[in-house]
Each structure stands twice: as C-alpha cells, then as structure tokens.
C-alpha cells in the first residue's frame, strides 16, 4: 500500500498555481435541469392521462398523445438528463483535472446552444415536425445543430483534459469521454436523412436497415446517454457525498471497458422476432445477457462503497437518493437482459412491460441520481447548508412511492395485455378482441398516472427546497483553487516514467473508445448493408403512390407509430389476429420504417382493405363511434387541413434519390395520379354518403392505411415463403 502523504494537498510554494473553477456554467445547467425536468415530466403526465382520457388534448393536434409522447421523451432524455450530464461533468471534470474549463466562451455556447435546441425541438415536435424515428424525432436542421453543439462540448471537454494539472484520468472522465465519442457517432449515423423541405426529411435508410440503424442508435442512446455519463457522475458524486473512496477502483476500470465493449452489440434485442435476420437477433441476445456482468459489477461497486456507512445513509438524503438510484440501475440492468431473451421478449414486446422497465431506469436511476447530485451540489455552489433536510427526505419518500405506483401497475398491465392477446378459446379462436385488452388495463393506466403525478410533486418540493437554499446562500461564481502544474512531473508512486506524452492521453482515451465501439457496431451493420440476400425483394411490393406518400407523412407527423406497430411477428396469435407475418422485403420503400415499439392500439401492417374507406373516415373523426371504448383521440383537424400538393414533386424526387424506383420523370406527373386516386377514394366515401372536399388530409391518410399490407397478398407463393427471415411460423 502506498503511503498516505501522496494524497495530501500540494504544499504551498512556488510550484503551485492559483486558478478558479467556473461554477457559473454549472449553476445554469442546474437551473436548466429543474426547468426542463418539470416540463418533461408534465408532458409525460399529460401523455399518461391521454391514455385513459384522450379528450385531454382539448381537440388540438399539439396535445395529442402522438405528439406529447415525443415531447416527453425528448425533454426528459435530452433536456432533463442531458443538462444533468452537463451539470455534473462541468462540476466534476474541472475538479478531477484541477483546471478550469477550457473556454468560458465555449461553455456559454454549449449551454445556450443546447437550450435553444431543446426549445426549438419542443416547439417543432408539438407542430408535428418529426422524422418519425423514436428518440431521434428532431428534424434535420436540429440534427445539425445538435452535432455542432456536441462538438463544442467535445472541444471544451478535451481542451480541459489537455490543460489538466492531474495526470491520472479518473474513471469518471473515461465515462464522459466514451459518452462524447459514442453519442457523436450514433447521432451522425442515425441522422443521415434527405431533407425535402425545411422541416421534413426522409431517412436515408429504408425498412429493415432503417430499423437496425434506429435501434442500434436507440439502444445505445440508453447506454451512452442515460447510462455511461451517469455512471461517471456516480463514480464522482457517490464517493464525494459519502466521503469515502469507491469500493474498488480496479473494478470501476473493468466496469468501464467491459461495459462499452459489450453495450454496442446489444441493439438488435429491440427487434426480436421481427423481419431482422435471425443471426443479428441472436447476436443481440447473447451480448445483452453478457451485459449483466459489468452492470452488476458497477452496481455492487457503488453499493459496497457505503459499507460501514449505512448510518450516514439514514440521515443524509443525498445518499438515500444515490442508493435507490444505484439499486434501480441494478434492477433495470438485470431486467434488460431478461427482456432480451427471446422467450421473455415474445411476451413483453409491444406491451406496457417495456414502459415499466424503462421507467425504473429513468425515474430511479437517472431521476434519483440527478436529485441526489442537485441536493449535494446546490449547497456547495451557494456555500450554505441545504434549507431543509426533512423536506428532501419527504421528496425521497414521495418519489420512491411514485416509482412503485408507476411501475407495478404497468408490469401488471403489460403481462395482462400479452396474456390476453395470446389467449385462444378451445375451438381455436382468439379469445379477446383487441379492444377488450385495451379497456381491461385502463385502471392500471390510471394508477400509473397517479404514481407519475406523485413523482412530479416530489420534484416541485425539491425545486422549492433548492430555491430556499439558494436564497440564503451566496453564490461563488469563480471558486479559487490551487494545484501544481502538470509539467512539474510530480512523481506519485515511485515510477519516474512520466513525461510529456501525458498531454496526448485524452486523445488515446478517445480513440480507444472509438475502436471498441466501432468494431461492435460495424460488424453488425456491414453485413446487412452488403449482403443483398438479407433483404429479399418481393416483386409485388411497389412504391407508394403520391397520395399514399402524403398520407404516410401525416401518419408520421401524428405519431401513429407510437401506439400502432406495423410488424406482425411469426406467432400463432398475431397471424390469427392480423394476418401473415411481416417479411423484410415488404419494407424496402419505407423511409423511415414505421414498425413501432408499442401496441397501445392494434398492429396496422395488414390493415389495408380490412375496412371500407368510410370506416376509417368515421374512425378518425370519432374513434369511439366505430370502436366503443377506444382510447384513441379524435383527429378532427385532418378533415380541414389540406395536403400541400406543391411538395409532391420534391417528395417523389427525394424518394428517387433514395433509390425508390419511380419511372423517370414521374415527379412531374405525380400530382395527376394523386388527384385520380383521391377522386376514387372520395367517390367511395360518397357512396357511403360522406362528402369531402379536395386535397383533404384525411383522404391521403385513408389512402396510406388502405395500402398497408396489400402488396404481399398478390405476391407469388414461393417468393414470400423464402422472403422471410428464415424463422418458421411459431406456435405459442
């Protein structure tokens, strides 16, 4: 064991430098965490209530579930947690590096740039400007802005590392570096899209490839935006709050490398039993299961840090929050691999089980860790004790009860849905209509929203408590510190090998992370892109007509994919309920894919031709008129708004650029076909005594819905049989 004097502060003298930590940026990020946390959770509560009281949208497009849900997810992930990451990084990085942030200007640009993106993002999502890919909904101008701000953050991060006064890079910093590198790569690869207008783009990828890229992104967004940066925060703030070193530093290093190496491979577990090739699915499962090891290593490392200090946990709200956060991390990272097992996933996928699972992570791990850090940080930044520990304790209990009330009903709902979907009568008929499985879980939805409301009220308590603390303290914008400069080459453990190469160290960290992450991603992606046979073509699958394209844009805009899947899995019940299971070749013209990840409503992959046009017309005007008890909102505005046929040309041209085989020069005549198809639908509506004006959005949407799953029905038998992913029809 090394001697303790190594740990002591550098002795004052000619060798030390005096400098100042920038607390102001930390403060602004902390404020942003509180503000966006409340906005994001309110949006979530709104969406939760919309599931049993759809009229909460007040008849407005912006406030329907399909638009509130992306606002909620984007706000809590990128605004609440995002600002939480930056708050924690800007505070801890400076102290771990014994250096002020690289550039105050960049810090400012980073802060205001990020907030501007969030604000614009929320507004555009409410307006229905969305790319239609979950967790990456923001449209192309914002995607570019995110990349720019992310690079600003990167320069500031690596710049600080280069001018650090502490040669050792503490484990938390590696997590920050991995976060930066991987998120940059994920964001860029997943956001490759072709702009059509200022706020509309089509994903460059189509169908099964788009799905793979999207879930490779989606899964790793969880890994590298919600997990690794927060693990970095855990490795800094937990030892600080408990005033004891992490249980095993060696374990934390293993945790880091194992985690980033394995995480990147697990994405396909979001696409089990879909049209994704089987080998990719299995690969995702194997790596998901392996993830338990590093995740639990990290959790235990955190919890063991408190060994012998549990008396402190009893008194210190900060530690209470951190302990529950770490426990939830352990629960979510155990459940995740379990849900990745194909037999469990067969039950859980498309149900509320997934929603419960992610909220253990979101409310418990991210939320509680953020609260713990805030309760620890604000008193330090304002140089005063917390206004009320008791209130913080109350917040802790309200929050914990909130999580339980949120999660338990949804686990119940998820399991119930799945069992009801898969239930057959003795004579071999499906036992339940889909609608029965919806109305059955409504009490669970109500309880869940109560849990969410409790959790949110805890946040209000926290904001009040922090506000009071801030009012009685004095903020120290520039905190003085002193440390010896690195160039003095302080020998810390008798190994005088140290030299100036140290300055290059963060770059090595960056490249190591990149390799580890890139190898995993590339090996999964490349074969799908290169091997054509992975996406067998089905000759009867044709590009969408111009009117259907317009309808599809509306489908994406209204967020239909957030409640309706377009993916029939090869299970007996799904084939009986929806029709033939989905083939990869069916989606080759889908930019973006719309498989969805949740069935609050029934699957729509085979809905085309199932009902007359008038049924869809009436159903979208008032869903309960066709399906009594339905929780789908009314889409009245579709009956007034008109599609913009001026854009048809651009849309067809864009699709042609993406490789959709419209004939040459088709863009010019597209509107002719559009009008002809529209007149046919209006005529069929008229036959059912429904009159509609020209160019109404509703007609375009009906055209799209009636197209879904139609092509496959005319496919030659041999083609569809070999066109699948190779998996046999599953009985269950």
């Amino acid at each position, binding site marked *: 064991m090394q001697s303790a004097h190594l740990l002591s502060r550098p002795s004052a003298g000619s060798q030390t430098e005096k400098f100042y930590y920038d607390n102001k940026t930390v403060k602004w990020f902390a404020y942003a965490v509180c503000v966006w946390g409340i906005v994001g959770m309110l949006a979530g509560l709104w969406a939760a209530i919309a599931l049993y009281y759809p009229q909460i949208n007040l008849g407005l497009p912006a406030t329907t579930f399909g638009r509130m849900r992306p606002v909620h997810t984007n706000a809590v992930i990128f605004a609440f947690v995002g600002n939480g990451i930056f708050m924690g990084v800007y505070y801890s990085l400076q102290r771990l590096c014994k250096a002020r942030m690289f550039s105050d200007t960049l810090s400012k640009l980073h802060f205001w740039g990020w907030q501007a993106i969030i604000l614009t993002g929320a507004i555009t999502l409410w307006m229905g400007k969305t790319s239609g890919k979950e967790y990456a909904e923001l449209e192309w101008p914002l995607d570019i802005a995110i990349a720019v701000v992310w690079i600003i953050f990167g320069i500031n991060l690596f710049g600080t590392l280069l001018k650090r006064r502490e040669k050792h890079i503490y484990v938390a910093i590696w997590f920050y570096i991995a976060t930066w590198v991987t998120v940059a790569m994920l964001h860029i690869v997943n956001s490759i899209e072709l702009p059509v207008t200022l706020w509309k783009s089509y994903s460059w990828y189509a169908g099964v490839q788009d799905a793979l890229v999207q879930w490779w992104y989606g899964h790793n967004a969880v890994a590298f935006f919600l997990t690794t940066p927060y693990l970095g925060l855990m490795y800094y703030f937990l030892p600080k709050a408990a005033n004891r*070193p992490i249980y095993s530093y060696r374990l934390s290093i293993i945790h880091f490398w194992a985690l980033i190496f394995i995480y990147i491979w697990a994405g396909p577990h979001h696409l089990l039993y879909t049209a994704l090739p089987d080998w990719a699915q299995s690969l995702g499962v194997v790596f998901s299961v392996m993830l338990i090891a590093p995740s639990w290593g990290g959790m235990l490392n955190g919890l063991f840090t408190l060994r012998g200090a549990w008396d402190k946990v009893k008194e210190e709200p*900060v530690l209470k929050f951190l302990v529950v956060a770490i426990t939830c991390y352990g629960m979510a990272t155990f459940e995740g691999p379990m849900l990745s097992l194909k037999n469990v996933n067969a039950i859980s996928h498309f149900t509320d089980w997934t929603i419960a699972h992610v909220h253990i992570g979101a409310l418990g791990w991210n939320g509680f860790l953020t609260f713990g850090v805030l309760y620890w940080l604000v008193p*330090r930044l304002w*140089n005063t004790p917390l206004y009320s520990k008791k209130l913080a304790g109350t917040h802790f209990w309200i929050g914990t009860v909130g999580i339980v009330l949120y999660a338990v009903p949804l686990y119940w709902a998820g399991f119930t849905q799945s069992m009801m979907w898969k239930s057959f009568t003795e004579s071999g008929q499906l036992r339940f209509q889909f609608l029965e499985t919806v109305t059955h879980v409504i009490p669970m939805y109500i309880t869940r929203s109560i849990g969410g409301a409790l959790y949110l009220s805890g946040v209000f308590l926290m904001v009040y408590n922090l506000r009071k603390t801030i009012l009685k303290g004095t903020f120290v914008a520039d905190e003085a510190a002193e440390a010896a400069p690195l160039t003095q080459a302080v020998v810390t453990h008798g190994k005088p090998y140290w030299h100036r*190469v140290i300055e290059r160290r963060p770059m090595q960290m960056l490249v190591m992370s990149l390799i580890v992450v890139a*190898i995993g991603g*590339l090996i999964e992606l490349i074969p799908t*892109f290169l091997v054509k046979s992975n996406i067998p073509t089905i000759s009867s699958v044709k590009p969408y007509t111009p009117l259907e394209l317009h309808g599809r844009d509306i489908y994406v805009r209204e967020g239909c994919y957030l409640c309706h899947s377009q993916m029939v899995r090869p299970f007996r019940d799904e084939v009986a309920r929806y029709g033939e299971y989905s083939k990869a070749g069916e989606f080759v013209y889908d930019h973006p894919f719309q498989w969805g990840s949740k069935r609050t409503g029934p699957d729509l992959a085979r809905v085309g031709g199932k009902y007359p046009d008038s049924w869809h017309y009436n159903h979208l005007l008032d869903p309960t008129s066709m399906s009594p008890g339905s929780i789908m909102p009314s889409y009245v505005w579709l009956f007034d708004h008109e599609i913009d046929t001026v854009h048809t040309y651009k849309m067809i041209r864009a699709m042609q650029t993406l490789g959709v085989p419209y004939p040459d020069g088709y863009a010019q005549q597209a509107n002719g076909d559009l009008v002809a198809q529209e007149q046919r639908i209006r005529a069929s509506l008229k036959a059912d005594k429904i009159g509609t004006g020209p160019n109404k959005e509703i007609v375009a949407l009906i055209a799209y819905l009636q197209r879904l799953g139609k092509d496959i029905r005319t496919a030659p038998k041999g083609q569809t049989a070999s066109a699948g992913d190779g998996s046999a029809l599953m009985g269950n």
Partner: protein
Amino acid sequence: MSVLVVLLIASLSVALIFLGAFLWSVKDRQFDDDYSPPRRILFDDFPESNHLNQP
C-alpha cells in the same frame, strides 16, 4: 445505399489506425496505481479553509 458502404469503410480504416494507438496506450501506465486516484478526489484544492466542509 452505396454511400453507406463508403461511409462504413472510412470508419473502419479510421478505427484500424486507432487500434495502433490503443495497443500503444495499453503499454502506458495509466492503470498501475489503483490506490491513490480514488482517494485523491476526496480532497479539494482550496487555497483557504473558509469553504463548506465535507458532509
């Protein structure tokens, strides 16, 4: 889709260059000391002692 292949090949070559850097840095001694770093972070570097203490 061909642009993707180009993109991925580019990333792969970059990754390979980085692989060399990775092997080089493994030889480096960043991980030799696992005792002092976790303890060092518990100490703050205040020039004076007028700040709030550890909890």
